[in-house]
């Protein structure tokens, strides 16, 4: 895959090739983590798999950890129901975001795979209730919403025709889950086949889909934030890609959602890779190459500086019931509220 990205470099501008390579690398680490980490034939425990992934360089680590949860959950024996999977205290706190995302994606995909293309409302509701229960039973305290957000990612990627039906059912089961669902839809829009290859206006297509597919303003904020989140995290080593995306977004009136997605992704990175802070420096600086300094300052640099000073410490305190965690970043928050 990386070879084909190199081949494409003859036809695409530098940063577009870089973006394809970043996407392929993220996908490869997620889908083929067993090969990357050379899992032995007798399946290792989850903490052991996590230890192997944590030895990778930071950028590879976060996607490999998501792949570990996907691999482990996919191959878990179904005869014994999974319980307290990610509550295991042996699992490090900074692996929680990718582990909950990977587990949520796999549980959501499995629930949808059992339904077929046109499920009845009753079957869909039962599948979603089971999904909620499994996520609840296997998430660490305070991280449940991180895993259910992945339903949006799975539906928009694998069964896009079901997205309204699933959104409605999720809303009826738990109204608070609906914004998370649309955030997941937004993340999916960055990876779906029509937008995967970064030429022919893939950023515009993804943004237009985020705008058109979301049925309400709140959902639109979440899809746009989810899209910006995915783009930021996958390309975190190459801020020029985010600059190009933001330059394309100017004048759309979506700066609050874009800013939320970008800044949330930066905070998640800091949580996952505490030692990798130098990568964040360009995002806190007003120096830009493509986007106007004013746009970059408004959407990225200033909100990020504020978030790291005021919001991040509150989200990373030792968990107490009812207290927000990093998982709460998986939902769009009005910046005026979060800056207050």
């Amino acid at each position, binding site marked *: 895959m990386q070879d084909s990205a190199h081949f494409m470099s003859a036809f695409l501008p530098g940063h577009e090739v870089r973006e394809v390579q970043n996407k392929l690398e993220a996908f490869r680490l997620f889908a083929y983590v067993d090969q990357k980490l050379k899992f032995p034939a007798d399946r290792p425990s989850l903490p052991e798999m996590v230890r192997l992934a944590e030895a990778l360089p930071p950028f590879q680590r976060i996607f490999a950890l998501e792949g570990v949860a996907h691999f482990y959950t996919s191959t878990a024996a179904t005869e014994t129901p999974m319980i307290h999977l990610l509550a295991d205290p042996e699992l490090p706190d900074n692996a929680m975001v990718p582990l909950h995302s990977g587990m949520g994606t796999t549980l959501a995909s499995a629930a949808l795979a059992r339904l077929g293309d*046109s499920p009845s409302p009753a079957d869909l509701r039962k599948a979603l209730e089971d999904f909620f229960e499994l996520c609840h039973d296997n998430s660490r305290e305070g991280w449940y919403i991180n895993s259910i957000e992945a339903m949006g990612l799975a539906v928009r990627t694998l069964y896009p025709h079901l997205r309204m039906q699933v959104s409605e059912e999720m*809303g009826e089961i738990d109204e608070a889950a609906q914004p998370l669902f649309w955030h997941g839809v937004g993340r999916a829009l960055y990876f779906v086949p029509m937008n995967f290859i970064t030429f022919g206006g893939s950023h515009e297509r993804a943004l237009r889909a985020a705008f058109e597919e979301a049925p309400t303003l709140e959902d639109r904020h979440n899809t746009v934030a989810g899209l910006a989140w995915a783009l930021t995290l996958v390309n975190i080593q190459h801020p020029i890609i985010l600059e190009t995306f933001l330059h394309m977004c100017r004048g759309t009136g979506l700066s609050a959602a874009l800013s939320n997605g970008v800044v949330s992704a930066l905070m998640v990175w800091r949580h996952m890779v505490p030692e990798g802070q130098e990568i964040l420096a360009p995002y806190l600086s007003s120096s830009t190459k493509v986007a106007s300094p004013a746009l970059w300052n408004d959407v990225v640099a200033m909100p990020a500086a504020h978030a790291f000073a005021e919001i991040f410490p509150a989200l990373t305190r030792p968990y107490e019931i009812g207290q927000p965690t990093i998982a709460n970043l998986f939902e769009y928050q009005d910046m005026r509220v979060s800056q207050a």
Partner: protein
Amino acid sequence: MSKGISKTFREAEIGGAISRLVYDLTSPPLPPGEERTRAVAKFRAAREGTLAIVQNLSQEQADFSPRAGVWSIGQNVEHLLLTEQLYRIQMQNMIELARQGGRHNIALTFEEIDNSIALIPRDVIPKLTLPLNMLNMIVPRVVRVALIRTPFVPALNPTASSPKRGQPIAALRARAVASLNTTEEIFRGELPAGLMDVTLSHPIFGVNNIAHILGILAAHEDRHHWQIKSVVANPLFPPDALKSLFQLAEEKSLADNSTGTKGR
């Protein structure tokens, strides 16, 4: 509903099909129990799709054929039931072999199930057994199943599943329900531990375990839904019930996607 939005949804559906293919290709192998559970569920979902199609069908609609050589909806359904019966016997044989223990393969030949690829005469296809077997070793199963599901590669049915014309639609409906129950029944009891080690091979479908066979049956049923849709889309198709059902379903789906009715 603007054409632009409709095109976007079509693109999303194609993207979904590609993503499912990629996901199936790259996912780690499922545990045996889960593989069987999902296969049974997929087959049930496909059959429920068939039942939804024939639910309000009149006999005239069930017997309508757009032109000579094209099956009516009734013939499509009858063919699905005969195919299910054909492979249900094989699945029961696989369970029986698993009870005896050890690894087994039931090798079906073109003499036993003489399906073919359209344009290749039936008496020629057995000569292609070797190259087809080799091809099956190279082409991943999910790709083969995708080819069965979509009508891009035309196929010929085995003689044993050739349907008769003019079957009473009420009887077909009842048989479709009963047949599904019979197939599901064989998976309800206690299954032998080594069941997934028993395989069934065929030059066109490759080597498959019992869950794969069910997956192939589900894909085959989906494929016939496409065929049925093309019969319904014919301008001479007898009006009302079924056609309006399809239209209503499609209109509802498009309307839901564009207006965003929500449970808030």
